[in-house]
């Protein structure tokens, strides 16, 4: 299944770079970015909430592309990549939702607003992907499981941008727009936001890399155990035949 798994020097360097960039992003958030005029200190949540949400949505779409690659090649490593991508994206999405809910409480006085399309659509995306793991668990045959999960991931990857666009075109919303023509972020805020986005993206990439290494290693250990058991069974059978003869 793919290349030999190693968490080598480059992975360690990536881990150190992630910690450094995360530290830099926090320093920029609290010591460089100016206080926002309307929300004041509360707006600092923006730098953690929005990058988490963006990265999770992009990762859901990427997982769909990985799933397409699995269906094209039938190489199990692509399925594993899509699976890991969706797992991590779901964790990021839940974190974004919780951060958003905290922000909503501070800003609007409510933990949740049901008539806000952005919140509800994001919750629907999370619920959609929450079914991915149970779907996999429901199919025993490994190849069928991978095929069904891939189709599901592809449907999700199409659904996520459509959902995003539908909300974008919605007229009634409370949610501020960060990206696009309506965004009016001043320079220091925009720079801080971009560094936070890069830091969270690197965090995601590092987690993805370590997770992939771990799952490949686990697959190798299982394969070794199966080989050993098969060799033992074959030796036992030979011994039995010899003694019978």
């Amino acid at each position, binding site marked *: 299944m793919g290349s030999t798994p190693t968490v080598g020097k480059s992975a360690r360097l990536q881990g150190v770079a992630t910690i450094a960039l995360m530290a830099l992003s926090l320093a920029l958030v609290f010591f460089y970015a100016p206080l926002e005029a309307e929300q004041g*200190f509360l707006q600092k949540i923006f730098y953690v909430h929005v990058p988490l949400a963006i990265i999770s949505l992009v990762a859901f779409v990427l997982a769909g592309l990985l799933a397409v690659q699995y269906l094209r090649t039938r190489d199990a490593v692509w399925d594993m990549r899509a699976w890991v991508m969706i797992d991590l994206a779901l964790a990021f999405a839940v974190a974004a939702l919780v951060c958003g809910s905290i922000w909503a409480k501070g800003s609007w006085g409510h933990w949740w607003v049901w008539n806000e399309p952005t919140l509800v659509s994001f919750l629907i995306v999370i619920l959609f992907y929450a079914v991915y793991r149970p779907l996999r668990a429901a199919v025993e045959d490994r190849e069928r499981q991978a095929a069904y999960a891939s189709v599901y991931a592809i449907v999700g990857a199409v659904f996520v941008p459509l959902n995003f666009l539908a909300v974008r075109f919605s007229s009634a919303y409370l949610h501020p727009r960060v990206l696009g023509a309506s965004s009016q972020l001043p320079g220091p805020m925009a720079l801080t936001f971009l560094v936070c986005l890069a830091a969270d993206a690197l965090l995601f990439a590092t987690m993805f890399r370590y997770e992939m290494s771990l799952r490949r290693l686990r697959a190798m250990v299982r394969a070794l155990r199966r080989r050993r058991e098969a060799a033992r069974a074959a030796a036992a059978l030979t011994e039995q035949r010899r003694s019978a003869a």
Partner: protein
Amino acid sequence: MILALLPALPLHTAGKYVAGAYIVLLLLVLAYCASLAARVAAMERDVTELAADTDEDDA
């Protein structure tokens, strides 16, 4: 539009919300590290067991 009408929360009020949001990020990373550590420990046990069985077979 509604946001524009809301006044900025003072630091002592907003601080707990901001801390809460950043703690969520910290918890995400810590939970992942803990999960990774647990799975690495489990795999270490598996590999040790496999190595012991292989030694046994060789002997």
